[in-house]
């Protein structure tokens, strides 16, 4: 099992407040890793480090290493645009751009300078199919993406992230703003895509984590408490605190 990404002793401070106290965690390729933990423990912060979405925040300090295919993404002279093509991201709220479904999904390719219309069209269709939203959108590709339901919008956003063929897709509570049916549709979508992509997903829904993930990492107060295969984490975690959290005794 190869690791596509590895975090080594990642520390992060917002001003004087240290939010991550040195996290070391590896992400196996073509698997889904779930990041769980109580609110405010630093899950989103950590996730955002993985495609450098924290860079723009004022007074932020990041140390440690994050390797993508064995190269540190925090090295100087890194091409941010190239990094984000490799590591895509889907947010908690669906964030379709206020234009057509087609233009939404084609966006990443177009900003990367792809001009070939056939290639773009083929990728758009493929991505919509992968995100399991093709049936609902195939007759209305020119319709404004905002005109779809929340769950459909989220799958359009997943398609949009997939269109640039990333290696890794980061998901920050992708279903927490959705109804149960839409959520389970997204879950199925992710299950189907695991063969092709590596996913790293923050979730508060432990059942969801147990259903879709291969690896679980449990964070608390900016520390990685424990990580392991989903089965092992849910059935026989090493630490008592992990077991308490997974059994809903706090959090």
């Amino acid at each position, binding site marked *: 099992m190869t690791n596509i990404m590895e975090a080594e002793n990642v520390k992060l401070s917002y001003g004087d407040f240290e939010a991550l106290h040195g996290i070391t965690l590896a992400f196996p390729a073509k698997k889904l890793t779930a990041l769980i933990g109580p609110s405010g423990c630093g899950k989103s912060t950590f996730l955002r480090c993985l495609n450098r979405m924290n860079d723009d925040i004022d007074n932020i300090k990041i140390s440690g290493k994050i390797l993508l295919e064995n190269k540190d993404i925090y090295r100087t002279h890194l091409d941010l*645009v190239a990094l*984000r093509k490799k590591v895509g*991201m889907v947010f908690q709220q669906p*964030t379709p*751009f206020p234009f057509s479904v087609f233009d939404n999904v084609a*966006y990443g390719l177009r*900003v990367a300078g792809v001009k070939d219309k056939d290639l773009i069209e083929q990728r758009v269709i493929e991505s919509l199919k992968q995100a399991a939203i093709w049936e609902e959108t195939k007759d209305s590709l020119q319709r404004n993406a905002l005109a779809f339901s929340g769950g459909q919008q989220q799958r359009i956003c997943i398609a949009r992230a997939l269109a*640039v063929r990333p290696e890794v897709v980061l998901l920050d509570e992708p279903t927490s703003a959705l109804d149960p049916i839409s959520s389970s549709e997204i879950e199925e979508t992710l299950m189907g895509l695991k063969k092709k992509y590596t996913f790293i997903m923050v979730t508060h829904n432990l059942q969801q984590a147990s259903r879709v993930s291969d690896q679980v990492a449990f964070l608390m107060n900016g520390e990685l408490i424990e990580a392991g295969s989903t089965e092992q984490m849910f059935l026989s975690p090493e630490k008592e605190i992990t077991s308490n959290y997974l059994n809903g005794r706090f959090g």
Partner: protein
Amino acid sequence: MAKKEQDLQEVVEQAIAQQKVPHVKFKGINPRNIDIARLTKPSKETRQERWGKGLTALAIVLIGLLIVAIIGFVGMHGLATFFTDKVNIFQFLFSTDWNPGAGPKHVGAAAMIVTSFAVTLLAAMIATPFAIAVALFMTEYESGKRANLLQSVMELLVGIPSVVYGFLGLTVIVPAVRTIFGGTGFGILTATLILFVMVLPTITSLTVDAFKAVPKELRKSSAALGATRWQTIFHVVLRAARARIMTAIIFGMARAFGEALAVQMAIGNAVLMPYNLVSPAATLTSQLTSQMGNTVMGTLPNNALWSLALLLLIMSLVFNFLVHLIGKKS
């Protein structure tokens, strides 16, 4: 006890008899202690609410009457040109012969209409790119002290009375235009340049609002897809803010179209079809301000001026309507 209260008392008794009301042991909340007389009277809050509603309704009615009176008055006088003095409406709109003192055959406002639209559109066209650039700088690139400083400058520019702008234009721009382009220095170009400065802050501050209304998440999503900052601005922010920017431009145009004093001081006040940008001309507003003291109420020249006023009023309604239309569509 009134009939209604007796009925209610009965309901309470029945409920207790049927044990629908759980037996309450606490002091004071025994169902028998309910003060039915008080419950059936409007409370203090209800009375206050009625008062408040009454007062606001009255204010609305008064303002409504005022608006109707203004529109009615302008309409009555403005239409008298066509009904009493028998001026042909097409002639009014399309003829450039403006000399109402010479009779109803000489009431053509086309030159002023064209000039009004020309200065408005030109001022908006020059101001918009600057407004967008300044607004982008303030929202996307700079958000700290310098943006606040710019904001204050813009607010200051809005607050300067138009006569000051006119005076400045008269002193600075008129001679400059005269030196560069020849002629008198008065004309559409000079008026446009003054209006540009006047509408710039209006369009800019509304455009800033437009950009601020674009959710941060869209910018983040765009960045997460590998877009550069400029690509994000160009493809996402500008696009998402498009309708609001249009609204900003229309508000700016409404201001330019209605501006009287500053334009009157710079445009030359000659009711002629403008054949270039540096020849003296007149707008609807400048003609109104410069002529309203020179006519006698009820005569054709006076009514003709009211027709110009009516046209201005209609245009302001059109601008408002456009803003609504854009708001509905997006």
